[in-house]
């Protein structure tokens, strides 16, 4: 039984009982109806293919957002790692740029004495 048929069957019963409804109940029913009308929204067409009611659309949107929030950090991490591993030359290039522009000339980094001092400085640190 669909919603419309159910409504049709229920209507005479509701109308018969309507006269017996007290003022307080009538007011409560009226406010419930107004609330329901307020909450009702136009059905949403998804990707121009299917029409779903607004509540379903919202649930879908929420679940997509939830999935995205779950996967986003992993995707970012993967992308960063992939970028780093696929371009090791870029990292070395940046290091070379620092080395070439520092105060000490390249000779220093090839100098044996300097290497020894560095070792002892690293050891004492």
């Amino acid at each position: 039984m669909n919603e419309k048929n159910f409504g049709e069957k229920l209507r005479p019963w509701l109308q018969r009982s309507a006269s017996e409804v007290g003022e307080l109940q009538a007011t409560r029913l009226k406010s419930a109806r107004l609330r329901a009308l307020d909450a009702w929204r136009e059905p949403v067409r998804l990707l121009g293919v299917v029409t779903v009611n607004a509540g379903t659309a919202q649930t879908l949107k929420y679940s997509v957002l939830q999935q995205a929030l779950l996967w986003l950090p992993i995707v970012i991490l993967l992308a960063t790692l992939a970028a780093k591993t696929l371009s090791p030359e870029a990292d070395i290039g940046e290091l070379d740029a620092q080395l070439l522009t520092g105060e000490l000339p390249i000779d220093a980094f090839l100098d044996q004495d300097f290497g020894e001092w560095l070792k002892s400085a690293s050891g004492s640190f």
Partner: protein
Amino acid sequence: MAQERLRLLLAGLAACVSLAAFPAGTDPKAPPTPQTPWYRLSPQDRQVLAPLAPDWDKLPGYQQKRLQSAARQYPKMQPIQQERFQKRIVDWAAMTPEQRKAARETFKGMQKLPPSKQDELRERWLEQKGAAAAEPARR
């Protein structure tokens, strides 16, 4: 559903770990980096790498890529650093891969020291080299 999601999550993490543990660049069987001919460089790269123009096409692809990457830092450098870069890049490119590797290792080692220690080492080396340069002049 939750189990499937957890499985996917774990698979993603495993992929991250394997990428981190076995970076592509460390594979010795990886194909060599292709060369980039001088004429295919961007005008900016050509300007920065101009001192290397005569030898550029003889450099291996991986070295070209590293130099291009270093050249990309050029606009961010201070004028004095740009001057040093231009002066040193020819010698740098002429060095053997082993020399460059050794220089990088020493440089990285120095970077690990606290700034005060780095200054101390720098001063010490510059002083020693200064004295050594002055020595033959005195004789």
